[in-house]
């Protein structure tokens, strides 16, 4: 934390200095106090870096006291801008104080931060984030990783809420690294990937690279070589773009480690050599040392002991860095390499160098490891006593050491004693070794199991993610496909629509033209139909005219005769009056009266016929009238008969009527119904006349009309004894313009009009029954309440 703090603070100081002066002059507050804090912090960092903890602590306390005083001041609290700066300074003071304190008293450091948390308000998210982040660091330092992770996560949440994306990103990264160290590869990857995403969003190249490399290393650890290399490759490209050779070397180093983990020594060597070549160009000794050491190790693994020695020795010429344990390890390895050559002297020299360094730096593991190696060398020469003395000496100088080294150490001691014949001591040490060995095995197993578990957990997680990703990809693909299909359908639809529109337009114009023609034709047809209907009426009227004339002639004759007679009778009556025969006068006057009645009767009869004729030719009123259907039938039968007789004097037929007296008056359209009846009768006469012409005297034409009430219907039957209607045309007789009459004699509309009148105007039925050579019966069926 302190290193990051230093950087932060330096940046902060540079910017703050100018601003604070400006701010104080503006708000007329004594700048001395804030300057004191800045100065104290400056001193603190200086001493901290010099590892002078007491002085650091002194300035840290000073900074914290001053800043706390300002922080609590009501005057400053009332000034938003100023208070904000003071709050920042106070935060910085607390964070640095706790960092310093942590070196000596971890619980006190944590308490300090807890105390500061209490000073913050609920919505000081950013400040809280910094404090939580520092708490996390402190817990991790005291190896309480879980607690540390918990605080890091809290910090993360605060940074998220405060929308401080950079802090959020750094916290993600550090959380990812902690989890990686802890072996939580899956969770680590989650955070690192988020960090990467955020870094990319922020266009922060260095953060992006950090995240890429961190992710790459996670993959390297779980031996996902290809994925690891992929991330590292991206980092490499970014460094290359920036011409950052240090960065490039770092990535090659990481790649080397990745291949090393994967057991690909040659590839690992290539990358470490590339890293080394770059690192030799700049003076960072640890980096050079490290690269040589890796190369040496790898060559040794390849069996190239000479190469291993050469590189390790070169590495050991770069030791101007603080990583002394690495240097010691490197010497021990070098000694081991010499031992393998074999070159006992050089091995011995090297081990002694390692022994000196270990003892100087109180590096227990180094001391024991070197002692074991030296003992082995002595044993090789049969000098068990010397071996034992190396070991014994080392034992006293290495209080705390890791179990593995310790167990190997006691194994070596036990071996030395047994070779020296001191079996009791050999046994005692062997017991220690056995106990340690169990612990080591247990620890090794545990670590193996943990690693395996972590890798498995990671792989499960990865598989799950992959599956999820695949599912998401599949869904996306499906969506894309669907969109494609939709788009294609849409396009096809559009094309079809366009074609359709064009066709429709063409059709529309054609139709419009056609419609005009059709309308014209239709109106022509309508007028023709009207004319036809009229002509049908006139045709039937024509058929009637003769009959009507005849029918009128008769009553007129009566009228004339009876009036003439009456006139004569009056003369006679006057004569009788003179004669005084009043008896006769009475008779005559009765006759005259009777005659006058007859005149009236026949006059009315003529009038009725004329009326009927007019009605027949007139258009229908469409209003139903109470009509004596029997009388109507009788009248038209007569008219039709007389009409036919006028045309053909020779024609005669037996007319039979059978009217149901119960019929009474019913509601019908009289002219229309009359027309139907006339039509049927005319047809009947035509039929019998035809037959009469062919069959001659042997045939007696008969036409009959009858009415009757049957259940709920009124039936009007018109029958003839003509040839009947052949089956072939039976279906057609009701069709308009169908006629069997010679051209010019029939319109072909009679039956169709009749059908129409009965069916549509009277809701009735017009049926035909016919037997060839026996005759035809037309039946009109009318509902009783029409």
């Amino acid at each position, binding site marked *: 934390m302190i290193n990051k703090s230093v950087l932060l603070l330096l940046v902060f100081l540079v910017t703050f200095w100018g601003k604070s002066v400006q701010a104080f002059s503006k708000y007329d507050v004594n700048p001395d106090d804030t300057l004191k804090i800045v100065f104290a912090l400056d001193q603190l960092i200086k001493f901290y870096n010099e590892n002078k903890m007491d002085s650091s602590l002194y300035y840290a306390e000073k900074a914290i006291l001053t800043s706390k005083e300002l922080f609590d001041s009501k005057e400053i609290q009332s000034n938003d801008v100023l208070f904000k700066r003071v709050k920042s300074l106070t935060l910085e003071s607390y964070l640095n104080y706790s960092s310093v304190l942590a070196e000596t008293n971890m619980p006190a450091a944590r308490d300090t931060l807890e105390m500061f948390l209490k000073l913050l308000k609920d919505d000081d998210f950013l400040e809280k984030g910094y404090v939580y982040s520092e708490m996390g660091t402190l817990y991790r330092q005291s190896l309480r990783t879980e607690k540390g992770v918990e605080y890091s996560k809290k910090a993360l949440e605060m940074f998220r809420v405060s929308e401080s994306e950079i802090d959020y990103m750094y916290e993600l990264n550090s959380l990812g690294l902690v989890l990686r160290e802890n072996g939580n590869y899956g969770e680590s990857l989650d955070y690192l990937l988020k960090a990467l995403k955020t870094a990319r969003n922020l266009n922060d190249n260095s953060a992006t690279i950090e995240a890429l490399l961190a992710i790459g290393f996670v993959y390297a650890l779980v031996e996902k070589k290809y994925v690891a290399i992929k991330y590292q490759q991206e980092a490499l490209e970014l460094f290359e773009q920036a011409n950052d050779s240090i960065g490039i070397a770092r990535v090659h180093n990481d790649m080397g480690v990745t291949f090393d983990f994967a057991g690909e020594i040659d590839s690992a060597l290539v990358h470490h050599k590339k890293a080394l070549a770059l690192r030799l160009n700049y003076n960072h000794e640890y980096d050079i040392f490290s690269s040589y050491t890796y190369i040496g190790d790898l060559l040794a693994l390849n069996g190239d002991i000479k190469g291993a020695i050469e590189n390790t020795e070169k590495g050991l010429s770069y030791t101007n860095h603080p990583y002394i344990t690495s240097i010691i390890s490197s010497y021990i390895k070098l000694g081991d390499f010499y031992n393998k050559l074999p070159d006992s002297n050089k091995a011995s020299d090297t081990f002694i160098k390692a022994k000196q360094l270990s003892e100087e730096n109180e590096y227990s593991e180094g001391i024991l490891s070197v002692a074991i190696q030296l003992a082995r060398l002595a044993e090789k020469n049969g000098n068990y006593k010397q071996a034992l003395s190396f070991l014994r000496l080392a034992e006293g100088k290495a209080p705390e050491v890791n179990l593995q080294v310790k167990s190997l150490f006691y194994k070596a001691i036990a071996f030395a004693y047994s070779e020296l014949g001191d079996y009791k001591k050999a046994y005692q040490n062997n017991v220690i070794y056995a106990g340690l060995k169990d612990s080591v095995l247990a620890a090794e197993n545990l670590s193996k199991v943990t690693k395996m578990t972590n890798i498995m957990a990671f792989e499960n997680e990865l598989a799950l993610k992959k599956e999820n990703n695949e599912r998401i990809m599949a869904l996306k693909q499906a969506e894309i496909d669907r969109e494609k299909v939709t788009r294609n359908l849409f396009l096809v639809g559009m094309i079809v629509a366009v074609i359709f529109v064009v066709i429709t337009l063409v059709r529309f114009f054609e139709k419009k033209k056609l419609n005009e023609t059709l309308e014209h034709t239709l109106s022509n047809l309508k007028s023709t139909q009207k004319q036809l209907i009229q002509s049908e009426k006139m045709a039937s009227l024509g058929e009637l005219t003769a009959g009507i004339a005849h029918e009128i002639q008769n009553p007129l004759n009566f009228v004339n*005769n009876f009036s003439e007679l009456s006139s004569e009778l009056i003369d006679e009556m006057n004569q009788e009056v003179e004669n005084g025969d009043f008896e006769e006068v009475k008779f005559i006057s009765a006759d005259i009266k009777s005659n006058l009645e007859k005149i009236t009767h026949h006059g009315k009869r003529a009038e009725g016929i004329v009326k009927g004729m007019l009605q027949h030719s007139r258009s229908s009123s469409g209003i139903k009238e109470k009509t004596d259907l029997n009388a109507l039938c009788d009248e038209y039968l007569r008219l039709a008969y007389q009409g036919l007789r006028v045309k053909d004097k020779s024609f005669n037929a*037996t007319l039979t009527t059978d009217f149901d007296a119960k019929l009474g008056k019913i509601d019908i359209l009289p002219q229309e119904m009359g027309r139907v009846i006339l039509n049927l009768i005319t047809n009947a006469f035509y039929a019998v006349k035809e037959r009469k012409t062919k069959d001659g005297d042997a045939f007696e034409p008969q036409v009959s009309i009858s009415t009757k009430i049957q259940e709920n219907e009124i039936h009007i039957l018109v029958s003839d004894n003509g040839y009947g209607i052949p089956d072939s045309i039976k279906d057609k007789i009701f069709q308009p313009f169908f006629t069997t009459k010679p051209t010019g004699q029939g319109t072909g509309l009679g039956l169709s009009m009749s059908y129409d009148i009965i069916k549509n105007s009277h809701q009735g039925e017009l049926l035909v029954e016919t037997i060839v050579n026996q005759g035809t019966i037309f039946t009109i069926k009318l509902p009783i309440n029409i």
Partner: protein
Amino acid sequence: MKILIVDDEKDVQPLFEQRFRKEIRSNAVELAFAFSGEEALKYLENNTQEAILILSDINMPGMSGFQLLEKVKEKFKQPPPVIMMITAYGDEENMTMAKKLGADDFLTKPVDFKALKEKLNISL
């Protein structure tokens, strides 16, 4: 003299009765009426021995005047009745037909009773 008048118009009866009032009273004529051809034939069958003058309309439903004429000429030969057909005015065709079928004479409607009476005097 017996005259059988055949017409489907029933009012011909009072008409003829009045026109022949004097003749009926003086028993110069006796009138009989039939309202269809069939009825006329029946009457003739029932009164075979009488010398009869038949006045018949032509246009009648059922048996027409001409049919009646034919039947009468065919059936009743002893003594052959005098048959006069009454035709509509100006109906040359019917007149020719009536003559062809053996009608003794014909009258046109409206019936001129004076002319009829003169003819009767000649006929009888």
